[in-house]
């Protein structure tokens, strides 16, 4: 078990290195293959109608004249050894892990990421609780009442939920519930939980429900399919033959087996989500990692992009490791080796 974890961690680390190289390549190397000069790259980070001198100075400052390997090396070095930032009137130390300074805002990336994590965590955890409860409950009931009105209604809704994008459902929900009925706060509302837990929940309610709706739809469909399959298994018949109450048969024997594959999906979904719920955060203007990522990409702010990609990738890698470990706990047939 321990060797397995160590081996997986080494693999995860190698994976992160590859991801960082690929990301770096997409933003630094590919444009150069396409013929972009250091000046052309720097021109993204200057103001309107900047003079060639300005562009040249900025390209120099951002190190675009260095060979790509040196630029990547500096980035990696910053993560492990820290870096320095010359803000004109002085030099600022950026201690490890230093993901560099934003080209646009001049802010160090790492504190920004730390600052935004609680927002995304709050969003992801709340939504996950809702969607797991709602999705699994609806899926189980639909499976047990296959073909009923409830089944057809919820599965129709679930199909809509899967196919409707969040920027659509999110926008509609804001217009109806926030601006129409006034039940929920307007977009852009967020209160940290340590400031006021009630307001925290109130502000996040609509994003939670919207995000949960999307996932609950998937989970309901999966749970339903899984339950239909599981409830036809021989061991369910055995459970009934023992004289178990139907409720126990469904929950203890049926659901137990159905949930195992769903757990895997949940781990990956949740890992992806805590790396940034991009659409939800953008739609509701929540200052989380997802919004940070989309702003970073929009402004092509390389250090920000690298930082947020690596953090998100770390979450996914760790989540999948935890899922694999949990899987071995949940399904005794699985051996880690």
């Amino acid at each position, binding site marked *: 078990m321990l060797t397995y974890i160590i081996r997986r961690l080494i693999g995860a680390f190698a994976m992160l290195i590859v991801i960082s190289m690929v990301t770096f390549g997409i933003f630094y190397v590919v444009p150069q293959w396409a013929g972009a000069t250091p000046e052309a790259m720097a021109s993204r980070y200057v103001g309107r109608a900047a003079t060639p001198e300005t562009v040249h100075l900025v390209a120099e400052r951002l190190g675009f004249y260095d060979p790509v390997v040196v630029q990547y090396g500096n980035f990696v070095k910053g993560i492990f050894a820290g870096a320095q930032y010359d803000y004109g009137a002085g030099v600022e130390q950026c201690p490890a892990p230093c993901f560099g300074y934003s080209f646009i805002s001049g802010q160090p990336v790492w504190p920004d990421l730390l600052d935004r994590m609680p927002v995304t965590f709050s969003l992801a955890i709340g939504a996950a609780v809702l969607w797991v409860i709602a999705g699994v409950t609806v899926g189980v009931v639909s499976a047990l009442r296959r073909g009923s009105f409830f089944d057809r209604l919820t599965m129709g809704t679930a199909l809509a939920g899967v196919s409707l994008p969040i920027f659509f459902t999110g926008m509609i929900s804001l217009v109806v519930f926030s601006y129409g009925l006034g039940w929920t706060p307007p977009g852009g509302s967020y209160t940290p939980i340590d400031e006021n837990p009630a307001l925290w929940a109130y502000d996040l309610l609509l994003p939670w429900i919207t995000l949960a709706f999307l996932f609950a739809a998937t989970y309901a469909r999966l749970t339903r399919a899984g339950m239909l399959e599981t409830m036809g298994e*021989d*061991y369910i*018949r055995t459970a009934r033959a023992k*004289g178990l109450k139907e409720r126990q048969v469904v929950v203890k024997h049926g659901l*137990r*087996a159905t949930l195992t594959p769903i757990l895997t999906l949940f781990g990956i979904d949740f890992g992806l989500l805590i790396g940034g719920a991009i659409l939800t955060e953008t739609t509701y203007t929540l200052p989380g990692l997802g919004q940070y990522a989309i702003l970073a990409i929009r402004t092509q702010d390389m250090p920000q992009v690298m930082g947020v990609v690596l953090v998100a990738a770390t979450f996914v890698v760790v989540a999948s490791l935890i899922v694999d470990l949990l899987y071995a706990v949940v399904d005794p047939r699985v051996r880690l080796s």
Partner: protein
Amino acid sequence: MSFLDVKDLKIHFPTDDGIVKSVDGLSFGVERGKTLGIVGESGSGKSVTSLGILGLHKGGRARLSGEIWLDGEELIGASAEHVRRLRGKKMAMIFQDPLSSMHPYYTVGHQIIEAYRIHHDVSKQVARKHAIDMLGRVGIPEPARRVDSYPHEFSGGMRQRAMIAMALSCDPELLIADEPTTALDVTVQAQILDLMRDLQREFNSALIIITHDLGVVAELSDDILVMYGGKCVEYGTAEDVFYRPEHPYTWGLLGSMPRLDREPTERLMPIKGSPPSLINVPPGCAFHPRCPYAERTGDKARTEVPALTETAGGHLVRCHMSRDERHSLWENEIKPVLEIQ
């Protein structure tokens, strides 16, 4: 009235293509301490019969009629909750494939404990001790250690022993074993059958063994019921059915019995064709399309359903041929080939 008395049991399933008459007018009885073997090919309705007795036939869709009396109590028409309380306690079942019939995520012990505690208000410790005890009695070595094993960690034979332990954990008075040895290899089959015989004696329960293999029931059964197309075609004591079988289908079953003294692939008298569809049971005698002697009774075979008639004391046969005709066929044509002494 017997301990279990089934009268004119019909289990019909309405489907889009028509009504599936899985069981169509079946009557039989089993006493405590006695064993009934129900024999037939797959699709003859034998498994549905056993599930019907336990109330486990597929819920709302099935139409059940007739009578099932268990220890003087009518089960058809009883509340689902009442039947549930009887399940596992008064009547228990052993299934064909112990691997798929045990929950893969729970230990063997857990599953026995669960079965016990449904019907007994005892602590987990007491139930666990009982589970270890039961595992020991079905011949599992080191039961105190194996109680915490998962089903996949057991061999096939061990699993079936565990399954038996689970079924017997509440000391049921009626035990139904549905193809208990089919999934096992031959040497293990014999061990399991021995075990079941011993346990039955010990517990003095009524036992129904359901199988397609006459050989399995030969040693265990007191009575044998042969099913074909949802109906009983021959019913009698084991001796009657083995030594004086009168139905051509029973002859066929005897002929297709795998025997230790023959090559496994060699079948003496295989039955031609395949079992009938339970939606469109052939008119007349359901067996006539496959019966080598159907011509002897002319049109009757195709138009008239033969009645189940008593040929000797308690020996029932459903055939248009006369008793003499059947006797002479058996004595002169079948018995010599099968080399039954």
